[in-house]
């Protein structure tokens, strides 16, 4: 039972930031596609902006790994 709760906690630690990242990337991606279509020279900046929200899910992953390694 305890292991199951830890597994759920780890899944939430990755899953919730993943949802937030996906939402942010969807918004940035659609705006970025429009911007690059108008100004192709902004492609690099758009890649940067698109990649920024990924930090959330990466940190979520770290928390999940910590949870599993510490408590499971």
């Amino acid at each position, binding site marked *: 039972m305890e292991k199951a709760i830890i597994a759920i906690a780890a899944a939430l630690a990755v899953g919730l930031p993943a949802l937030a990242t996906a939402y942010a990337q969807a918004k940035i991606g659609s705006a970025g596609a429009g911007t690059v279509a108008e100004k*192709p*020279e902004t*492609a*690099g*900046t758009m*890649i*940067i902006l698109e*990649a*920024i929200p*990924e*930090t959330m899910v*990466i*940190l979520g*992953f*770290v928390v999940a*790994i910590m949870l599993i*390694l510490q408590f499971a």
Partner: protein
Amino acid sequence: MLRGKLLGMLEILHWDDWGALSEESIRKTKERLSLPLDQLTEEIDKSLDQFRERLAGYAKRKETLQDLYGRIKNSREMLRSFRSFIKDPAQADRNISLWWIDKTEASKVMTSLEDSLKSEREGSCSYSHVTHAFGDNQLLLCVCVPHALQPLAERTLRGNGGIRWRAPVECDEKDTIDILHCIDTMFLSIPDEIKKINEDLAGTALEWGPKLASMFILIDEELEENVVAQRSNPTEEYFLLEGWIPADVFADASAFLKERFGASIFLHWRYPTSDEWQDVPTALSNPSGTRPYQLFISLLRPPTYNTFDPTSFIAFFFPFFAGCMVGDIGYALLIFVISSFLWVKGSTPVKKDVGKILFGVAAWSFLWGIAYGEFFGDIGHRLFHMEPLWVERSHAVLPVMAFSVSLGAAHVLIGLFIGFVRGLREKNNHLRNEKGGNILILLAIFALLASLKAPFSTVLFPSGIVLLLLGLILLVAGGGIGGLIEGLGSIGNILSYVRIAAIGLSSAILAMVASKFVDILGLSILGILIAFLIHVLNFILAIAGSGLHSARLHYVEFMGKFYDGNGKYYAPFARRRRTLWKKQ
């Protein structure tokens, strides 16, 4: 406007062979265009309009034929169920027609048709029909009646909401069987007609593409020459031209000009004045080994002249990080094959550069694959008893995470140090203090962390506190409260490098999942197929993920510490071949 027209026509012709356009072809076109620019423009414009009309006619005819072919194909598909009924010799002297009717009304329509036909022939009428359902609501009804009864059948069916099926083509024939033949004939003849138009267009593109492209280049040159000439302050005796030239080509360029124009040209060079430094364009100059990595800089605005070009750092760290994420000997060999193909066969310089960059990624992936002991996941271990040289990353998660964060710390510190040096060189106190403060705070954190475990913690702890205080003072002096936030951001940036471990771990686990399928399903076709598909997916993710994330680590975490991107690219006065008309 004219240039746009020319490029638009090249697009209609699908001609994009700028690389193969010879100087000879441009020279020949120039010889033919002897009129002054304004008359020439007018003449070309007129000819282009006529030519475009002809081309548009071709394109429209092709589009119409493609549309007709699609509709004929659908009709043939629709009539497939009725083909044997329509061609039945027993129906030869009778009238056959097709009707769309509502599916829910079908039985009512049929009863009504039967009743009306029977009443006409006093109960002795014979008619036959076939139906076929299309979609949820519609039914296509094929009715065969004697010629004399056709008007009555038609009235009855129309009265019950039936709609007569029409062929998608204008056929002279009236009988359904003849219409069917007409459709079949057109179904066979249209592709030939489209093929002929395509051949004509390809021939036109081959003949006219280079001519139009040469014309575009010449007009482009004429315009640019005119712009430069307007800035040349001409007098009766002389004119003056001023421009930027990279120092490393100055000797060659001046020797060429002296040889070409002799004593009639006066060359003078000077350094930019203090007001002009901000206008100096940037030309990136790197050794051939690192030059392909300029591609990463070309996606951004260039660095300001005389600031730092990070290409050489990207050339080392990009493949290193990407290789660390892929970390599989098998995948490394596949990347090597792709990179060799692009490097050797790449049709454009960008593709060749991508090939060279992938070669670096393949080399580091191979080395990291040895460190992790991975060959297509755990296949190497299963078949060849391969053992990791360092750690098995699917099991030892923490060491790999700690290592990637350490890499991040080193990378971010290098970025901060470059920013600090830039601050010193430019005498920018704000930049110098902010980056210097950041470096001290990070060093303080490392010292304090080390003091928890290291044997000489009595020295490390107070040193860490002193560094922390100094760093905070510098940070506040350099950037105020914003500087403090920047300091916290640097810690976040370092933690962000944990993605190297995370992506690598997910790749390793996915590769193991592929092998598990073979365990569960055995050495069957299904098991091998699923394992193969998972490896394909993993390989694509490995290439895309490692490339994107490694690029992001450079753009955001590393270059964010010193790169300003306020420069403008050096665009020499030269012949340009490739142009995107949408950009103009």
